[in-house]
């Protein structure tokens, strides 16, 4: 006979300082053409890596929409990326040519079932190092359109990050879309 062992320790947020902190959250109260986290230099002395977690939907006609990420307001042709994508019928790999807008993930679109939001967890490593280009990776996906992606993203600049912008390729994120920025502390 099946039986569960579920039990709960006393839930406690905060308490003793750890190594993974919530820095900022944006939950859209109305649609927005983009989402930006700025003044990131505030975190440079404390955090080594950043993580961006999102659950979002776009106004795009269709089930899915790609999202590009730009940093430090750089719109120049300084980004590259790769994708490994599963659709349920095929697995494809892609190389995104160097450009000013490179996909980092996906969200659902207007045709997707009501309440269905796409999600992603983006890791930005060594975000404040000035000796390296900036790299990110993302696990992202949505059903309704059946798309699952492993993505890598590169910004070919050694400047420390000061700003991160996500944009659903010219459309808008809808109300209720959530974007949360976290920091991993350096030792």
């Amino acid at each position, binding site marked *: 006979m*099946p*039986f*569960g*062992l*579920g*039990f*709960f*320790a006393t*839930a*406690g*947020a*905060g*308490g*003793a*300082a*750890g190594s*993974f*902190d*919530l*820095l900022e*959250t944006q939950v859209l109260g109305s649609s927005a053409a983009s989402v930006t986290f700025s003044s990131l230099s505030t*975190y440079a002395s*404390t955090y080594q890596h950043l993580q961006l*977690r999102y*659950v979002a939907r776009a106004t795009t006609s269709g089930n899915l929409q790609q999202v590009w990420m730009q940093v430090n307001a750089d719109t120049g042709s300084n980004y590259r990326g790769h994708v*490994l*994508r*599963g*659709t*349920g*019928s*095929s*697995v494809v790999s892609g190389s995104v040519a160097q450009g000013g807008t490179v996909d980092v993930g996906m969200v659902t679109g207007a045709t997707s*079932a009501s*309440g*269905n*939001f*796409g*999600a*992603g*967890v983006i890791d930005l490593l060594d975000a404040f190092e000035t000796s390296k280009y900036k790299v990110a990776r993302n*696990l*992202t*996906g*949505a*059903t*309704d359109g*059946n*798309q*699952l992606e*492993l993505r890598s993203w590169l910004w070919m600049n050694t400047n420390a990050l000061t700003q991160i912008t996500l944009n659903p390729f010219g459309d808008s994120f809808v109300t*209720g879309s*959530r974007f*949360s920025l*976290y*920091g991993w502390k350096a030792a």
Partner: protein
Amino acid sequence: MPTSTYTSLATITLTGTDSEIVFSNIPSTYRDLILVANAGGSGSQAVKMKLNGATSGYSFVTMWGAGAAAQTAAYATEAAANAGFGASIGTSLDWSLVAQIMDYSATDKHKTILARIGRGSGATEATVSRYASTSAVTSVSLYIVSNDFISGSTFSLYGVIA
């Protein structure tokens, strides 16, 4: 103001077999849940996840590699979310799962689960599942199709605020 998060909520370590692991009475305090498992089974089979004990309303897309050509599958009307389809569990304690249950307490969204699954002697897999309900998640469970989890299997649940 930065707030420390990634809180350990509960850990289950099996000292015998169990057909289903259940984390219940999950508070709505957090934004995302992260389920981490390292386990084995009494037989080699797919692993499934249920939210709130629901046995319908799930869909998933998955892709995996086992040494030959990469494969993918999608299912639209399922009785559970995917927690190991291509990377099914085996009879050794060498199967692992890290599942991100996003916005689990939101009542304006379906529940999206992003997961990485692996078994060194089997396959590596990435998957996205959706539970088409806007109800807040208060329980998460894992089970193996027609088999049990074995002694030594560990399961940990974490909460992340937003």
